[in-house]
């Protein structure tokens, strides 16, 4: 302090020298640089997020419409018998209706190529329609059938006409037919309800998410039924009743670690314990739900504990003072007051479970299943595993379907998270 050379005695001119000014400028520049690094980092992260969404929407949105071809189908009684409409030769009927549009096509190979414009599923759609309404037999009906994947891609501009013929799946002749159909107004692209109401299929134009949505619903229902009550009970015990000792410490460390174990390890547990040891069926939403519930449990426990902690002690003391037992305090007062927070945590945990893929792959929920599951024990897929299956499929149309399925999945996640946010904002009490 009494050092005569202390900075307080430095003459003012010291700060005005050129070096000093440069130093200040450099220091300020360094400050600006750090600020810029931060902005660039945030910019990169946000740009990646934007790229992710834009690319998914760009590839996915065409899948929400599906190219259809309108055919005038004469339901020939020679092909379809009135007393057993489900066994009729619908393939021939569809073929005939195409040939009447293009009578010049005689060569069988060319006829097959012409048939290639129409989805293989058309005959089954027609069969279902006629079976439901057999009086149609003998009449001519106008029917919208899905076009095959390649026509769909051509219509949406994904396949370029400029490509040489040998580099695309669709031939020049087929493009000419398509143009003729389009010119006569027979090509339409209505909203693709099949995406939501069909189950999986080998043909992209027929594949839908119904089975996957049902499978995810069942698995999440099981997950909720197990992890919600168990999670709340565990959280109440640990937060309100447990004595602070080695055992509860151990349980707590355990719960925190469980939250950080890679999800694929839970899949291994499900495979070894539930499938191999207990002999539960493969691909079943029940097993998927149990595995997901074990993963969701820590999330719900942690969220519930936070919500319970937020209830002020005065509530507990007042209830105790009026003669309530400790359990009555918790179940009659503390838990109801913290319920919005608990529900928020549960919804967020379920949303995370909905997007979880790896454990479901290991217990076989990635099978190719063309019917939707009727119950908890039926083989099923889930939304994320369906995305995985489609992403692996080589057909062009599945790339778009995958993006569309992702958009559907993200839509569900968005709804769940927004519900959680609203719940928190509307009902959570500030003390």
């Amino acid at each position, binding site marked *: 302090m009494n050092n005569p050379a202390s900075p307080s005695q430095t003459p003012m001119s010291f700060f005005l020298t050129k070096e000093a000014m440069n130093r200040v400028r450099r220091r300020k520049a360094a400050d600006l640089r750090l600020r810029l690094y931060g902005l660039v980092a945030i910019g990169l992260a946000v740009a990646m997020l934007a790229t992710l969404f834009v690319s998914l929407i760009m590839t996915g949105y065409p899948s929400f419409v599906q190219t259809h071809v309108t055919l005038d189908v004469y339901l020939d009684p020679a092909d379809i018998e009135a007393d057993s409409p489900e066994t009729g030769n619908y393939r021939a009927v569809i073929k005939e209706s195409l040939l009447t549009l293009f009578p010049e096509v005689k060569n069988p190979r060319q006829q097959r190529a012409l048939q290639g414009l129409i989805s293989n599923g058309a005959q089954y759609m027609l069969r279902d329609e006629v079976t439901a309404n057999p009086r149609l037999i003998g009449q001519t009906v106008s029917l919208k059938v899905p076009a095959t994947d390649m026509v769909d891609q051509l219509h949406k501009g994904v396949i370029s006409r400029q490509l040489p013929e040998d580099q695309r799946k669709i031939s020049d002749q087929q493009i000419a037919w398509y143009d003729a159909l389009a010119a006569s107004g027979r090509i339409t692209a209505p909203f693709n309800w099949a995406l939501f109401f069909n189950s999986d299929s080998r043909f992209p134009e027929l594949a839908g998410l119904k089975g996957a949505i049902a499978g995810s619903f069942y698995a999440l229902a099981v997950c909720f039924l197990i992890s919600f009550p168990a999670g709340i009970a565990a959280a109440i015990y640990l937060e309100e009743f447990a004595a602070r000792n080695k055992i509860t410490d151990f349980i707590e460390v355990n719960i925190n*670690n469980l939250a950080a174990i890679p999800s694929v390890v839970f899949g291994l547990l499900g495979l070894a314990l539930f499938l191999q040891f207990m002999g539960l069926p493969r691909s079943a939403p029940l097993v998927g739900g149990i595995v997901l519930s074990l993963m969701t449990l820590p999330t719900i426990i942690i969220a519930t504990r936070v919500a319970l902690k937020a209830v002020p002690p005065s509530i507990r003391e007042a209830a105790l003072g009026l003669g309530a037992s400790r359990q009555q305090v918790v179940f009659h007062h503390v838990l109801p007051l913290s319920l919005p927070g608990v529900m928020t945590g549960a919804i967020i945990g379920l949303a995370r479970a909905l997007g979880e893929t790896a454990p479901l792959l290991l217990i076989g929920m990635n099978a190719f299943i063309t019917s939707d599951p009727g119950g908890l024990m039926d083989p099923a897929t889930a939304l994320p595993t369906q995305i995985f299956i489609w*992403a692996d499929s080589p057909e062009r149309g599945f790339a778009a379907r995958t993006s569309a399925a992702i958009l559907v999945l993200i839509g569900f996640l968005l709804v769940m998270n927004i519900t959680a946010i609203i719940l928190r904002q509307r009902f959570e009490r500030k003390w």
Partner: protein
Amino acid sequence: MFITTLLCLLALSMASFFLFNARARALAVGASSRLHSLPSYHGAYVALRVALPSIAFLLIWSLCQQPLIDRLVMSSLPAEATIGMDKGALDLILSEIKTVADGRIFGEPSPTILAAAEQYKEWRQLGQYALFAGGLGIAFVALYLAHRKLAVEFRARQRVERIVSGLMIFCSLVAILTTLGIVFSLLFEAYRFFELVPWHEFFFGLNWEPQIPLRADQVAGLGAFGAIPVFTGTLLIAVVAILVAGPIGLFSAIYLVEYAEPKTRAVIKPTLEILSGIPTVVYGFFAVLVVAPAITAFGQRLGIEMAPNSALAAGLVMGIMIVPFISSLSDDAIRAVPQAMRDGAYALGATKAETIVSVLLPAALPGIVGGFLLAISRAIGETMIVVMAAGLIANLTANPFEAVTTVTVQIVTLLIGDTEFDSPKTLAAFALGLVLFAVTLCLNVIALRIVRKYREMYE
């Protein structure tokens, strides 16, 4: 039958609640002294006593029934039909019996199989009846025992609370049971693997080709199980991910805590958090659809030879995924540094950047390191991105432009499709899982300990 029995039991339990609620009330009217507990506690006591043991029986029985019946059926087969057969052949017979019992008969099963299928159906039917009868029987016995306790002075509330406490304790033990389940199932299967393949070959071998038999006299007879290239591949991708996520996460946390206006922060922080809410399968598809082609095209322009499923693409996307991890943990760590330390630095004339670099970051270092460790553990255990975007073939290289495989990719590819539990191929996945579990557990424990210790330092 399970659902029916469960519904019956729940209905019975509910009915007994209302019945005993009413009876306790009636008891109170005529009695000279007051009821010890509220009538609803009398009802709840009986309802819990009815429901809990019978539902526990239901669960245990339906879990044990299948293995029990399988064993019974197999032992009922005549000895000459199964003589000299190994486990695989026996399993085949069992599944044939089951398909025949379900009525799906292919070809012409032998008379022994047909007889066994009949037997199987009979036992299964019997098991179903036993489930129903046992569940209801236990419920009624419990009802009778509980009903005798109904009295004015019966301490029903205490009994109910004791049962509820027991249930809550059981639920908190589920976490421990899950960990135990994981540890034991991994240890058990990994042990069987190391019986087939020596552990030093697994941990130090340089050749990972589980699908292809290399030489006939090989211990496993199925392939090579040297996991070193798998481990290095995992590390390579994790390193790329951290190199991407580390700077982005740390710098954005610094900006958000020290520079950003509260309003900007309120917008940007949740936006970054979205990155961690996106399912990983979506990132995987994004990597395949956008990032990998872009990187390959970029590499071609620079004249670098690049695999379409390069470690770079997978690591990059994984890096994006763990940005919010690093940024929010660093954010917490920097914000936890006491304001006094900032004020001290400013008072000495330090600029913001100088304060951050020489005061805040050193002070927050343990928290930041903890965050990085958690992020590394995340990156090592991440599955879907690498399953979709990384390679399948083990490749011992440190070149991020080549395709490498990871532990999680191998686990998934070894277990998708067939799961014969006695081939070393399947069991190898459990050995890898054990390594993965052990490594991530260590990283988590260390990270959590560092973070907690550091937090205590300033509190």
